[in-house]
C-alpha cells in the first residue's frame, strides 16, 4: 500500500489542496512543539541547577527564546501563547480534515458514477454495477479516517520527525546520534517482522475468512431452516465455528500485534536510553541541564508521529483499498457505440434490422444472441422469442443503439436510405427509440411502487412518448390478466399507427398478436473452452 495514492493527488483537487495545507500545518505544529520545549527548559533549568546558570544551554537555538524567558514572569506568557497556538492548529487541522475528506469522497464518487454509467448496460448488469455502488458508498466512506487521522500523522512524521532530529542535533550531537541510529531500526524491524510472519499470517487470515464465511452462510440460511423445521441444531455449530474462528483470529493477531510491539519497544526504549545517557553525562558535567531538559522533552516527539502512523494505518487501509478500486474503475476504457457526431436521422417509418448479430457473454464462453438476423418493419409488431438467457434482451439493447455487437451489424433503413449503427451518432439513435427493460427504473418515487405498478408506469411513458421505434423487454411480466391484454392491445395499436415495435417475450398472448416471430438462440463460442 502506498502512503498517498498519487492518483488522488493528481485528479482530485480538494485532496491536493488538503495535502499541501496539512503539510504546512505540520510545520506549524513542529514549531509550536519546539518552542514549548525550549520555553519549559528555559524556565525549569534555573531551579534544577545547583549553581546559577552562566551560559546558554540551548546553543544556537537559544536565539529563538531569549534568556529572559528563564524568569517565569517573562516565560509563562510566551508558553501560554504557544499552547493557544497549538490548540488553534489542532482545531483548524481537524476542521479542514473533515471538510476535505467529505469533498474528496463526493468528487471521487461522482466521477466514478459518471464513468460507470458510460460502461454500457451489460457491464452494469453483469454485477459490476452493484460492485460500483458498494465501492462508492460504503467503501469510499472508509476514506474519512484516512484523511482525518492517517494523512495528518503522515505529514507530521515527515515534518516534525526530521525537524526535531535536526533540533536535537543542534542541542546535543550524542543524543541526536542515538536517535538517528534507532530511527531507521523502526521501519527495518517492522519490515523484518512483516516478512517473517507473512506466510503464517496469510494462512491464518485464510482460515479466518473461511470460517467466517461458513458461519455467515449458516446464519443466512436461518429462514430456510426455519421453513423446513430444522432451525434448532445449528446453534451449537455456530458456536463451534465461532470458537474455531476466534482461535484462528487470535493466531493471526498474535503475529499482527508483533509489529506494534516492535514499534513501541524501539521508540520507548530509545527515549529511555537517551534519558539515561543524559543523566550520566550531567554528572560528569559534559552537558548543561538546560540542554538535557530540552532534549528529554523533544526526544519522544521525534517518535510520536511514527507511532501514530502505525496506529492509524489499519483504520485507513479499507479506505485506501476502496480508493484504489474506484480508480481502477475510472481507468477502464468506456466502450464506444457508433460514431459520436455521426449520422443522425428521423426513424419515422424506419425498418430496423439486426444482420447476423452476435454478442459475447461477459465470460466470453458463449454468444447470446448468436447470429441473429431480424428486420422489424414499421406498422408491425415483431416478437423475439426464446428461452431465458439466450440473448433476447441483448438483441433489444443492440437495436436501441445502447450496445455495439461483437459481430454483424445494426442497420436502420429510412426512406430507402441505410444507416449502420457504427456510422451513426449513438445518442441520437437511442433517442429515436422508446426502450423499456425488464425491471424499469423510475427514480426514487418508483421504489415505492410494486413491480407491476412500476411496469405500467414505465409503459405509459414509452407508449405516449411518440418515438418511432418501440423496444419492449417482457412487456407483460408482473401484470395480471386484464392489464396484460390492455397493454398488448395498446402496443398493437401503436404498431398499426406506423410505429416499429419489437418485443422480447414468451407470453403466448403477445406472440399471438405478433406479425413476425423470430427465434433468438445462444451458442458456444468456437475455440472457447
Amino acid at each position, binding site marked *: 500500500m502506498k502512503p498517498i495514492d498519487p492518483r488522488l493527488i493528481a485528479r482530485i483537487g480538494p485532496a491536493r489542496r488538503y495535502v499541501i495545507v496539512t503539510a504546512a500545518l505540520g510545520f506549524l505544529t513542529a514549531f509550536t512543539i519546539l518552542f514549548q520545549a525550549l520555553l519549559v527548559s528555559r524556565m525549569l533549568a534555573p531551579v534544577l541547577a545547583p549553581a546559577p546558570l552562566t551560559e546558554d544551554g540551548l546553543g544556537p537555538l537559544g536565539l529563538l527564546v531569549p534568556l529572559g524567558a528563564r524568569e517565569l514572569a517573562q516565560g509563562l506568557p510566551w508558553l501560554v501563547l504557544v*499552547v493557544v497556538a497549538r490548540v488553534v492548529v489542532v482545531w483548524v487541522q481537524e476542521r479542514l480534515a473533515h471538510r476535505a475528506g467529505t469533498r474528496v469522497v463526493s468528487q471521487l464518487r461522482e466521477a466514478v458514477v459518471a464513468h460507470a454509467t458510460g460502461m454500457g448496460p451489460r457491464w452494469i448488469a453483469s454485477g459490476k454495477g452493484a460492485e460500483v455502488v458498494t465501492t462508492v458508498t460504503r467503501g469510499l466512506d472508509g476514506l474519512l479516517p484516512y484523511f482525518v487521522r492517517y494523512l495528518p500523522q503522515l505529514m507530521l512524521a515527515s515534518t516534525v520527525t526530521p525537524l526535531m532530529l535536526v533540533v536535537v542535533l543542534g542541542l546535543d550531537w550524542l543524543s541526536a546520534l542515538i536517535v538517528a541510529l534507532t530511527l531507521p531500526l523502526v521501519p527495518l524491524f517492522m519490515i523484518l517482522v512483516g516478512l517473517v510472519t507473512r506466510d503464517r499470517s496469510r494462512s491464518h487470515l485464510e482460515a479466518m475468512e473461511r470460517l467466517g464465511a461458513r458461519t455467515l452462510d449458516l446464519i443466512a440460511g436461518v429462514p430456510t431452516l426455519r421453513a423446513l423445521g430444522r432451525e*434448532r441444531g445449528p446453534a451449537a455449530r455456530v458456536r463451534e465455528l465461532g470458537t474455531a474462528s476466534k482461535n484462528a483470529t*487470535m493466531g493471526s493477531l498474535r503475529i499482527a500485534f508483533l509489529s506494534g510491539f516492535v514499534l513501541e519497544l524501539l521508540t520507548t526504549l530509545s527515549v529511555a536510553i537517551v534519558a539515561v545517557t543524559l543523566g550520566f553525562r550531567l554528572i560528569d558535567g559534559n552537558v548543561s541541564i538546560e540542554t538535557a531538559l530540552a532534549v528529554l522533552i523533544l526526544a519522544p516527539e521525534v517518535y510520536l508521529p511514527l507511532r501514530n502512523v502505525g496506529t492509524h494505518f489499519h483504520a485507513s487501509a479499507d479506505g485506501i483499498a476502496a480508493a484504489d478500486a474506484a480508480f481502477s474503475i475510472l481507468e477502464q476504457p468506456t466502450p464506444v457505440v457508433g460514431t459520436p457526431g455521426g449520422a443522425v436521422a428521423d426513424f419515422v417509418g424506419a425498418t430496423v434490422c439486426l444482420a447476423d448479430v452476435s454478442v459475447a457473454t461477459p465470460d466470453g464462453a458463449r454468444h447470446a444472441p448468436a447470429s441473429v438476423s431480424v428486420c422489424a418493419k414499421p406498422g408491425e409488431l415483431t416478437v423475439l422469442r426464446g*428461452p431465458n438467457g439466450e440473448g433476447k434482451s441483448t438483441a433489444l439493447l443492440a437495436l436501441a443503439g445502447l450496445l455495439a455487437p461483437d459481430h454483424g451489424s445494426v442497420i436502420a433503413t429510412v426512406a430507402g436510405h441505410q444507416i449502420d449503427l457504427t456510422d451513426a451518432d449513438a445518442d441520437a439513435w437511442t433517442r429515436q427509440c422508446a426502450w423499456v427493460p425488464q425491471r424499469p427504473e423510475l427514480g426514487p418515487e418508483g421504489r415505492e411502487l410494486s413491480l407491476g405498478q412500476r411496469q405500467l408506469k414505465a409503459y405509459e411513458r414509452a407508449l405516449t412518448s411518440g418515438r418511432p421505434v418501440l423496444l419492449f423487454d417482457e412487456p407483460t411480466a408482473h401484470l*395480471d390478466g386484464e392489464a396484460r391484454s390492455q397493454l398488448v392491445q395498446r402496443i398493437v395499436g401503436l404498431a398499426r399507427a406506423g410505429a416499429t415495435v419489437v418485443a422480447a417475450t414468451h407470453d403466448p398472448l403477445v406472440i399471438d398478436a405478433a406479425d413476425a416471430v423470430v427465434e433468438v438462440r445462444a451458442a458456444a463460442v468456437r475455440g472457447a473452452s
Partner: protein
Amino acid sequence: MTPRSLAKPRSPAQPQQRLDWRALLRDAEVKPVRVLLSVGAGTMALGSAVGLAAVAAWMIAKAAGMPSPAELGLAAVAVRFFGIARGLFRYLERLVSHETALGGVVALRTRTYEGVARTGASRVLGLRRGDIVARMGGDIDAMGDAVVRSLIPLGVAGTVSLLSIAITTAYLPVAGATLAGCLVAAAVLSGLMTWRSARTAAHAGTAAAARVSTATLEAIDGAAEHRVWGTSGAAADELRAADLDAEDAAELSARPAAWAAASLQAAQGAALVLALWLAVSAARHAGLPPTDTAVVTLLPLAAFEAVSAVPAAVQQAFRSAVAARRVQAMVGGAEPEGAMARGAVEGAPGLAASDAPVPATAPLRLEGLSAAWPGMLPTVPVTATIEPGGALGIVGRTGIGKTTLLLTIAGALAPAQGKALVGGAPVGPDTVGRVVAMTPEDAHLFGTTLLENLRVADGAVTEHQARAALEAVQLGPWLDSLPAGLDTRLGSGGNTVSGGERRRLLLARAVLCPAPIHLIDEPAEHLDADGIDALRALVAAMRRQGKSVVIVTHDLGILDVVDRVVSLDGS
C-alpha cells in the same frame, strides 16, 4: 455521558443511544476478571510511559546536582525497565482484550442465532438475507468492539490518570489538584463533544447517506434508461445534491469533533502551564527540591496519552449501541403487533404441540381463510380441501398477498379470518416447518456439498434417496455430469449453479422434507417451460409419497400441473 439529553430523545424514532454495558457483558459472557486483566495490562503499558517520564525527570534533576553515579543507578534501571515494559504490556493488553472481545462475539452470535431461531416464525421468514448477514456479522463484531475499543481504554484512562494525579500530589498537592482538574476537563469535554458529533452523524448523516445510496443506485442501474430518455443530467444532479447533503451533515458532526480534539489539547496545555508555574514558584519560594519540581513539571507531558483515547472510546460506544439496538430489533422479543395476537393459535392443541409425532400424511383444509399483515387489506377468503397426495395452485397478481397467505397456511402468521387445519387441528407457530414446510422463493443454498444441502430437509437422507430426489426433479443428467457427484461443493448462496438448477435443487429438497404438507413460493418472473416441467415432476413425486403441495405463483402456466387452482384476484 449526557444524562439530560438522553432523558428526552429528540424523536420517538430515535430511542436512547446509550450502550447497556451490563446486558452486553452478560450476553457476551465476558468474565469481569478478563476485563480487569486487560485494564491492568493497559495500565501497566501507559503507566510505564508516565513512569518513564517521572523517573527520567527525577534522574535528570538529580544528576544536575552532580551526585555519585551510584545514586542514579536504580533510576537508570527503572527508566530502562519502563522503556521495555510499555511495549511488552501493550502487547499483552491487546492479546487479552482481543481474546475477551472475540470470545464475547462468539457468545453473542450464538445467542443471537438462538434468539432468531426461537423468535416468531413470521418475523424470521420475513427477514431478508442481506439484513441477517449484516446484523449477525458486522453488527455483532461492533458490539464486541465495545470491549476492546471502549470499555478497556476508558478503564485505562481512569487508572493511569489516577496514577499521574497520585504521583503529582505526593510531591506538590496543589499541582495534583490542577492536574486532576485538567484531566477531568479533558475527558468530560472531549467525551461530550464526541458524543454530540456521533449523535449528529447518526441523525443527519444516516439520512444523507441513504439519499446518496439511492441516488448512486438510481444513476447506475438506470443508466441505460437515462440515455434513452435523455435524463442522465438529472440523475447526476440528484447525486450532486445528495452529496452536498452528505457534506452538510458531515460538517455538522465535524464541528463538535474538532472541539473535542481542541479541548484535549487545551487541557493538556493548561496542565503544563499550571504545573510549571506552581512547581517553579514552589521551588523558588517554598523550597521544593529540584527532583520534585522536575517530576511535577514534566509529568503532564506524558499524563494525557490515556485520556486522549476518550473520543475514540465514546465514538465506539455509540457505534456499538446502535449495532446492539439493530440486533435487538432483529431478535425482537415481541412479534409485530397483531401478527400472532389475533388468531389465538399460540396454545393450539394437537399437532401444534412440538413433541407430538408428525404424521407422514395429513389432509389440509382451508376454511374461508384470508391472510393479511397488520394494516394490510386481507386476501379474498379461500376454502379448499387438499387430501394427501393432492396439489393446490394459488394464483394472483403481484402484491395481492400470495406469500402472506402462504405464511398463514404454514402457521407463521395468524389468519385474518377463517382457519387452516391440518388433520383437523389448527396450524400455529409449532407446525411451521415440522408439519407444514415451506420453500420460499429466495431459499438458501448452503456453502457445503450437494448431499448436505439436501440433508437440510432431513438429516437422515441417504445418498440413494438424494439421488432419487434429484432424478425426480429431472436433475439426474446434471448430477451425472458432476465429477464429484453428490460431494460437489456448492458456493454460498448457491451462486455456482444456474438459476434453473437452483430452483430444482430447492424442489428436490422439498421432495425429501418429511413434513406431510409442503408450500412452494414461486419466483415472480414467468416460469419457462423447464420451470413448469420441474414443478410437474415435484407434484408427481410428492403424490407418490402421499404428501400434499400448495404452489403460489402468478403464472397461469401451472394450471395443468395442480389438481385445482384458486385465484386471489377476486372478481
